[in-house]
């Protein structure tokens, strides 16, 4: 179990689900490639990745619809591998709601209880409680086709929760809804999770949704988990260039290391975050979030001396974009490296294309990578 990625500060929490060296092969293709992951009891964990990254296949194996090629799935220490899906006691919400079209809302929610042969008095009580929870009491006798998409998905959530499963799986449940409704349901889901304390494993390709909902995010790429942690940590300190490029926007600069804390960029010396075992002359990659960088006109730069621990490069403006609450300034350095600087509109950005600017950032805000693939730096990479 040494391969399990442990999260600092969470050791005190109880592990509910363990995926150990999980694999799923289709012929030569590894849809899920040796994944190990511990899911804490009561946490909201999101599998984030583009389509084909293995996130849905992993969820499917957890649900029991796919059988792993190898590896182990443990829930409270017991193996799930040979437990058929209908005996796993897991709740699941699907992307297309998947309600039973021939049954009323009430009968849809009662279905898991009817299958379990629960006495009808108890069944009615639980269904009523669920209808109240998802605020659909007055729609109880409608057919699913008579409900809006958001209402249908609430029915699906009620149906998945009514038998009180330990784990709720959600496979892009809000993907078919429009943005405003999606945000509403995201808020509802977060509150629901807080109230019920249930363990939720959520799959999405929408990083904003992952950030809004989850306590931890597992980023999937090519069948592997390439990043695991809170949204904050993954964004501020991405473990690798792929995660940096995948989450949000990023500027990548290629440097030559001089020492553990110094490097040159296009011949100009820069200070970098202290990084162990860097060799002089080694290629390193620097990542700066656009909002951590500043663009100063030459006059501004002259009146504001460079603080210690900060870097400065000269560039010329190619484009200034106003985006409402923020604005971006695209620049290119003398040797042709493109960068983007983002600032709140309130800060002001009095540049225009062609102007010379000084781009500044704090060395501590820039991440340093010694290994990366060229395809990691391309945002669309990993999407296939």
């Amino acid at each position, binding site marked *: 179990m040494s391969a399990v990625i442990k999260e600092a500060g969470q050791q005190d929490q109880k592990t509910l689900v363990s995926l150990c060296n999980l694999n799923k092969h289709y012929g030569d293709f590894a849809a899920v490639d040796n994944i190990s992951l511990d899911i804490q009891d009561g946490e909201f964990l999101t599998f984030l990745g583009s389509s084909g990254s293995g996130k849905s296949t992993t969820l499917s194996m957890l649900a029991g619809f796919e059988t792993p090629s190898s590896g182990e799935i443990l829930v409270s220490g017991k193996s799930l591998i040979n437990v058929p899906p209908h*005996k796993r006691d897991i709740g699941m919400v699907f992307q297309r709601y998947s309600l039973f079209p021939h049954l009323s809302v009430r009968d849809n929610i009662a279905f*898991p209880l009817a299958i379990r042969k629960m006495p009808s008095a108890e069944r009615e009580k639980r269904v009523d409680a669920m209808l109240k929870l998802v605020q659909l009491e007055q729609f109880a006798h409608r057919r699913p*086709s008579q409900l809006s998409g958001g209402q249908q998905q609430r029915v699906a959530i009620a149906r998945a929760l009514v038998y009180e499963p330990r784990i709720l799986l959600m496979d892009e449940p809000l993907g078919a809804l429009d943005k405003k409704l999606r945000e509403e349901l995201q808020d509802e889901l977060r509150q629901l999770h807080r109230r019920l304390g249930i363990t939720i494993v959520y799959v999405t390709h929408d990083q904003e949704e992952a950030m809004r909902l989850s306590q931890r995010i597992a980023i999937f790429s090519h069948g592997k988990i390439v990043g695991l942690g809170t949204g904050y940590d993954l964004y501020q300190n991405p473990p690798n260039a792929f995660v940096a490029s995948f989450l949000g926007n990023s500027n990548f600069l290629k440097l030559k290391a001089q020492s553990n804390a110094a490097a040159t960029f296009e011949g100009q010396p820069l200070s970098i975050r202290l990084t162990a075992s860097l060799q002089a002359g080694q290629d390193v990659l620097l990542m700066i979030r656009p909002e951590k960088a500043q663009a100063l006109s030459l006059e501004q730069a002259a009146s504001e001396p460079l603080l210690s621990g900060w870097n400065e490069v000269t560039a010329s403006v190619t484009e200034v974009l106003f985006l409402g609450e923020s604005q971006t300034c695209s620049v290119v350095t003398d040797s042709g490296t493109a960068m983007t600087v983002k600032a709140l509109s309130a800060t002001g950005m009095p540049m225009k294309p062609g102007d010379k600017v000084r781009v500044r950032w704090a060395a501590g805000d820039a991440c340093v990578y010694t290994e990366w693939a060229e395809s990691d730096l391309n945002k669309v990479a990993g999407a296939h």
Partner: protein
Amino acid sequence: MLLTPNAMSPGLRFGLYLTTALIALFLILPIVFIVLLSFGSSQWLVFPPPGWTLKWYQQFFSNPEWMAAAFASLKVAVLTTICAVALGLPTAFALVRGRFPGRDLLYGIFTLPMIVPLVIIAVAVYALFLKLGYTGTLFSFVVSHVIVALPFTIISIINSLKLFDQSIEDAAVICGASRLQAIVKVTFPGIRPGMVAGALFAFLVSWDEVVLSVMMASPNLQTLPVKMWTTLRQDLTPVIAVASTLLIGLSVMVMVIAATLRRRNEARSTS
């Protein structure tokens, strides 16, 4: 756009309407004639009939041979329907959900009876049953009819099964239903239109089947189309027109039921 009726020149539109009407007439006239003749008073199937009568209907319903043939037809058609659905349902599931080598080939084999000339199937089945001594039995009628009805049943169930979102069945499974329970409680209601259509197709195929039935028939057991065929060769009584009208009447009824069910289903899924 040129070919939408509104954009056409009046002359072209008139020509189109006329051809359509003529083709429709060509298709429907024989049926109209035969229905009218069943009420005609002439013994020789003269058109237009010199007068109107119900006596041929009386003759039909009072003749035990015709009644036996009608009941035999009904019995064979109902049994064929039951067998075709019972066999077609698992076959359709295997062909849609199964992942095994030779699946497409199997689909081809199951739908082959639609392409192979009926008379070849008839001769082959006849030769087999002759050897086994089953000709002229209800069993031989039903088996031979199922052979030709099954492709229609399978195809219509396959079509609705392909349209059915399997994640609905998966949802039932994750809710605690075994796969079989999920199929019976959730998938069957979901593909009911296809199952009903498949059953109606099977019924219709059997109801007016004549080539196989002529081979299978014996003096003790013959279906309505066979009785019509043998009677036709002896004399041209208007009772045949009555039998035809009843044959057509039931077929039309089945089609109307199918259309009504389909419309109701569409209304339900879009409301």
